[in-house]
């Protein structure tokens, strides 16, 4: 996807453990473990990816696990292998069958 232009992207490979706060201008693709905050335009949590902390972005696609907080200003997709625990903010949501959701769900623009 972003292989041709990786400018502004963050890739966390499987087995990598990252701690801290990350501001990503474009795509954050997480296959490893991140503890802390991630803010990115587009976030992909791959099946092996785990995020413990705050996850903020325009479009968020979760195949792995996110614990604590997720906020997606445009779209949030939880795939069948995805697992989200904690507080969730979204404007458009999709959960595939098998996706796991445990926590509070808020719509950012409920009157649209």
């Amino acid at each position, binding site marked *: 996807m972003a292989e041709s232009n990786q400018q502004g992207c963050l890739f966390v490979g499987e087995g990598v453990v990252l701690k801290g706060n990350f501001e990503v201008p474009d795509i954050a693709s997480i296959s490893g473990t991140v503890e802390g905050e991630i803010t990115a335009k587009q976030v992909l949590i791959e099946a092996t990816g785990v995020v413990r902390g705050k996850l903020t972005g325009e479009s968020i696609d979760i195949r792995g696990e996110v614990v604590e907080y997720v906020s997606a200003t445009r779209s949030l997709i939880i795939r069948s292998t995805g697992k989200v625990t904690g507080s969730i903010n979204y404007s458009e949501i999709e959960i595939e069958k098998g996706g796991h959701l*445990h*926590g*509070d769900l808020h719509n950012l623009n409920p009157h649209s």
Partner: protein
Amino acid sequence: MFSRKPNQASAEEEVLGTEAEEVVEQEVAPPVVTTSEQASSNGYYDNGSRSNISKPSIISEGFVFEGTITSAGVLNISGTVRGKITAKSVLVDASGQVDGELNSEQLVIKGQVKGDVICEDLNIGPLAHVDGNISYKYIHIQRGGKVAGKFIKS
């Protein structure tokens, strides 16, 4: 089970909360109960088999029901239900509205639901609005579905 003239539906909508509505309600409540009894005595349900063996109970568009509905079979809601619903399988259609508690093994929501939901298999359609605490085993939310509240995976 019970039939109703179509023009009666629009009349009902206009006289919501009036005496006319309550009269209709009383007439209709017993047949709904009968349906559920038939379903439980005649129908055998294996685990995992869809319960389309029995006829569904239907709350039609424009129809308002207040009270408790219990059914061992399928319930299709295109109208409005205020109260508690317990059924094996519930479909809240695009025009359907439920205010209150909803207990069902298989639940499909295409319309509006306000209240606590307990179910096993939950499918929320793209035009649905769901507001309340939801306890589920398997969930599927189609893109565009509006949901708010506490989600608990059981």
